[in-house]
């Protein structure tokens, strides 16, 4: 490994603006990167990882400003050099791979046009050469049909492929440094592996230095040579990947490692009439069937996890149960009684029994209503509470979700953190005193430590009130933590179902196996081993 220092950041301070006031969001971070080295930058949301990553390009987002420190790239101080120089470096010597390739590709232009833009505009190579180069890189990135794929528009290409195409685009000028900003976070687990592998390979091939930003330790472990942990804009610790994984020094780092500690004991199989019984449901949007013959039961006091990748029909199943999407055939029984297929046909009591918690608490809570109104409304509506009774109930519910009523009762959702919002979602569901709560990816938008808290809360509530949960998720770690039973779905069908213990022990259906094996592990060699294994099996 070349020891020449490529990037040297010292005492970096970045401020963000709210209103007219500036507050520091990066508080003196140092960072050194040698040529060809991959540095993992890890932390929870709000740690300032992306901000630091962008600062490495001498770039601050609108509403942010670099207020202190030096950023020296290959001897050029990016803070003081003219904008023209910085602009010349960007895309040519320092490239960026964004979290959401789907959003970061310009929808108006073909992939290859966007690929060629940087090399042509920076005068690295002429257009025709850039095109040939692109096809070559697409091939290296193991994109299907590399000759043609560049001539598609972004929306015609899948997310995993786009992420690889974006990596290829970043490589176009053969930069010395690439910033990967959560490049696999938005992808399904099975896709994540492919992208991760492709990124790792190409970075190694061209001996490019990289900063790999992520919140997922297991992922960064596969790619990085060194790992730096950030917390609220400050560095917690930095170490070689191996050392870091084996022996984290700081408590915070350790707590990150210990996240998966919570596991719930599997409850005994339910008996009697299930709370909800989904029977041979087939459902369609228009002419296209999105659910085919789906059946499963949920018993009181038990959690059924419905697992699958995006597009597998998990959420659609929830929509059928709630009545938003009447099924084409099949039925949903509630306490043994068939539910009217459409929402309109259901009685208020039937509606009350089944509540839902959403993935994005941001969009699930009306930002213009206070917590009192948000939580109070179901109680008022279903249970006829008002006046002090309602007030007491709201306070009780806030207590239940571990938020101090005195502080929070009149706040708006916008004033809460992500985890707190999700708790409000739970309280709102609880307010109806339902039998079943459908949890649609309730933890996937949250940081891991926060996730843990939510899962614990849900578990406690289930024990207290004997609730049945339908837990929709793509995250197998969550499944492991909370599920009693698992339903695996793929392309609208139930592939496999059974108790958690059955599911996490072989033998599996091939798809279940693929799903399980794709979950990254905290082992730097995991990816290499897995790929070898798969190659052997496939070959």
């Amino acid at each position, binding site marked *: 490994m070349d020891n020449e220092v490529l990037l040297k950041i010292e005492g970096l301070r970045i401020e963000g603006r709210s*209103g007219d006031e500036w507050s520091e969001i990066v508080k003196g971070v140092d960072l050194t990167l040698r040529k060809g080295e991959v540095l993992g930058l890890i932390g929870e949301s709000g740690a300032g990882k992306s901000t630091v990553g962008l600062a490495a390009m001498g770039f601050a987002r609108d*509403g942010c400003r670099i207020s202190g420190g030096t950023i020296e790239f290959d001897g050029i101080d990016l803070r003081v050099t003219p904008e023209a120089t910085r602009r010349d470096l960007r895309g040519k010597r320092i490239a960026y791979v964004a979290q959401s390739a789907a959003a970061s590709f310009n929808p108006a232009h073909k992939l290859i046009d966007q690929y060629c833009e940087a090399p042509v505009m920076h005068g690295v190579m002429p257009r025709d050469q850039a095109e040939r180069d692109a096809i070559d890189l697409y091939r290296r990135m193991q994109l299907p049909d590399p000759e043609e794929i560049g001539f598609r528009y972004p929306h015609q290409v899948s997310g995993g492929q786009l992420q690889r195409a974006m990596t290829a685009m970043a490589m176009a000028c053969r930069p010395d440094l690439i910033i990967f900003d959560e490049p696999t976070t938005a992808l399904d687990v099975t896709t994540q592996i492919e992208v991760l592998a492709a990124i790792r390979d190409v970075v190694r091939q061209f001996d490019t230095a990289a900063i790999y930003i992520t919140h997922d330790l297991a992922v960064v472990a596969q790619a990085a040579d060194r790992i730096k942990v950030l917390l609220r804009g400050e560095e917690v610790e930095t170490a070689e990947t191996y050392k870091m994984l084996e022996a984290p020094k700081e408590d915070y780092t350790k707590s990150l490692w210990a996240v998966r500690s919570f596991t719930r004991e599997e409850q005994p199989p339910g008996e009697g009439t299930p709370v909800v019984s989904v029977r041979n449901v087939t459902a369609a949007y228009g002419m296209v069937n999105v659910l085919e013959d789906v059946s499963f039961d949920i018993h009181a006091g038990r959690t059924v996890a419905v697992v699958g990748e995006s597009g597998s029909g998990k959420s659609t199943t929830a929509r059928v149960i709630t009545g*938003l999407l009447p099924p084409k055939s099949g039925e949903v029984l509630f306490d043994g009684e068939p539910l009217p297929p459409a*929402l309109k046909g*259901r009685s208020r009591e039937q509606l009350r029994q089944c509540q839902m918690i959403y993935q994005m608490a941001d969009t699930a809570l009306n930002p213009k209503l206070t917590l009192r109104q948000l939580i109070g409304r179901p109680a008022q509506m279903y249970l006829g509470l008002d006046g002090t009774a309602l007030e007491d109930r709201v306070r009780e519910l806030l207590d239940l979700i571990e938020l101090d009523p005195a502080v929070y009762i009149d706040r708006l959702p916008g004033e809460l953190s992500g985890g707190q919002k999700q708790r409000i979602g739970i309280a*709102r569901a609880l307010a109806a005193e339902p039998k079943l709560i459908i949890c649609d990816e309730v933890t996937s938008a949250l940081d891991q430590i926060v996730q843990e808290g939510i899962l614990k809360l849900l578990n406690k509530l289930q024990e207290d009130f004997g609730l049945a949960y339908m837990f929709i998720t793509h995250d197998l770690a969550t499944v492991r933590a909370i599920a009693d039973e698992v339903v695996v779905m793929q392309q609208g069908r139930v592939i496999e179902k059974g108790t958690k213990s059955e599911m996490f022990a072989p033998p599996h259906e091939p798809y279940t196996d693929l799903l399980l094996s794709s979950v990254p592990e905290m082992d730097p060699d995991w990816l290499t081993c897995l790929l070898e294994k798969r190659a052997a099996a496939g070959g």
Partner: protein
Amino acid sequence: MSFFLWVVLGLAVLFAVAAGLRAVARTTLTGSARTLANDMPLTAAFGILVILIYAFVAIATPVLAPFPEREIVGTQFEAWSAEHPLGTDRIGRDMLSRLIYGARNTVGIAFATTALAFIVGSVLGIWAALTGGWVDQILSRFVDALMAIPALIFSLLLLTIFGTSITALILVIASVDATRVYRLARAVAQGIVVMDYVEAAQLRGERSWYLIRREILPNAMAPLVAEFGLRFCFVFLAISSLSFLGLGIKPPTADWGSMVRDNATLITFGDVTPLLPAGCIALLTVAVNFVVDWQLYRASGLKE
């Protein structure tokens, strides 16, 4: 030419006062009001100042106006003097007083009209977006059809049928404007209806009226308020265009659109008389839009 100098000077003074007041607000206010003041660009401060002045003038009209609205107190087209600071109009009424009364009448009528248009248009628009299906189809097609008829000509037709009382004027312009509001409200609401919190409320079994009132309308306010500002100004212009065509606010009620219209022939000779009411309209329009721009900017900024 000195008239234009006065105008420029007047605007400069307004800007200076706005800047001063903003500075005062920044130091004296606390909490969210202070954040607001900190956030405020000079143009918005100017806009707010102008709107406040107009509101004050509209409310305090009888105190401010030196002469009654309709009384003939001088001869025709008297020059500017101490007694009549802006001279007199074509039948000898005090121009300044007419302008001040015009603020009350014009702003009041425009406000009532716009408010009505917004209530009707946004409720229907949101309802259509929420309900979808044939309700949406029928309402939207009907609105499309109405919008396909040129607004001015349609108002003209309706006013000819229903007469030009102030009530009719408000109702007609409001109903024509409501179609535009409907469209916007529907488009905005379509974005909100798909939000999880609306779905959650639907799952709860809430009725349409609650959904419109509590779930959708509050969240559609930002674009609607911005549109309100623009529509408010368009109503002025619509009324003055109608005055041009002989329908509009009835004299001797002072209204700026009609005042421009009545003195329009004087523009031919470069006379400033018609400039005054036109300037009043323009100043308010610009002021309202400055504030609207700022609000829009804030709304989009807070979304980040």
